């Protein structure tokens, strides 16, 4: 499990969704890297792709709602990061299907997805939590 306590934002709904994303990405990476023939992995790979396409959209939607409620000033640029990732997931899924389940595409997808998720949660999303904490402090002052 690649999840770390330091990734917690302090917002239960978002933290649970992040943990679920990390669980799924961990499973996905472990499956893709398993030293067995690719044909034996395709079922789980396809399941993960279907999950990611739905869950990522739901999670991003909830995260953007949180930012809206907080009045987070970087929502437009954060939303752009989300949109780019959704477009990438959709595009790579289509290419994978059209290529007849080509392994190379999924190896590349797993590497990029892993790095993207860690950075997004460890860095970009922490800025939302920092903003929320600053806002709360200002309210109490």
């Amino acid at each position, binding site marked *: 499990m690649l999840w770390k306590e330091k990734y917690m934002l302090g917002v239960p709904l978002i933290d649970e969704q992040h943990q679920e994303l990390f669980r799924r990405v961990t499973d996905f990476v472990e499956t893709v890297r398993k030293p067995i023939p690719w044909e034996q992995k395709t079922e789980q790979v396809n399941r993960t792709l279907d999950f990611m396409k739905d869950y990522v959209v739901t999670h991003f939607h909830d995260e953007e709602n949180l930012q809206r409620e907080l009045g987070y000033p970087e929502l437009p640029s954060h939303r752009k990061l989300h949109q780019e990732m959704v477009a990438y997931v959709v595009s790579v899924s289509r290419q994978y299907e059209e290529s007849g389940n080509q392994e190379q595409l999924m190896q590349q997808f797993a590497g990029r997805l892993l*790095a993207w998720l860690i*950075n997004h949660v460890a860095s970009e999303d922490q800025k939302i939590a920092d903003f929320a904490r600053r806002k709360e402090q200002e309210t109490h002052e």
Partner: protein
Amino acid sequence: MNNTLHLSFFEATREVFELMLDLQKVSESAVAPGEDACGNLTISIGVIGDLTGDILYTFPKETMLEMVRIMTGGMEVSEVDDFVTSAIGEISNIISGKAMIALSERNVVCDILPPKVVESEESVCAYPVDSNTKINTEIGSVGLEVRLQSK
């Protein structure tokens, strides 16, 4: 401007390595002439806008494998394959994106292009000749070369 530019990329690298890989000791040093760097992978990130050109990141094999081991929570990785190259390309992309944000705060507005693996013999056994800069960490080094020009 050159120092500011270079510093933006060094600082972005330091921040990304700390946040993503928990690396605390990140410093810079000169690359010794002829320093051995066999097995390296060079990732190029194109830049367009107020500045144009490329940023080159040169990763020795062991550095890359260790970075991926950290990210995967200890998974054994022994070869630089598509999975590793893609993860390292994304990290180069993330570093460059952060440097662009820092530059935009100085009113230098640029966009970056998707990472590309540099396929050249030069990248196989040497750091980029004119970079002279190596970023050192607990898990190895990374060559950094900023090749950008004002419009």
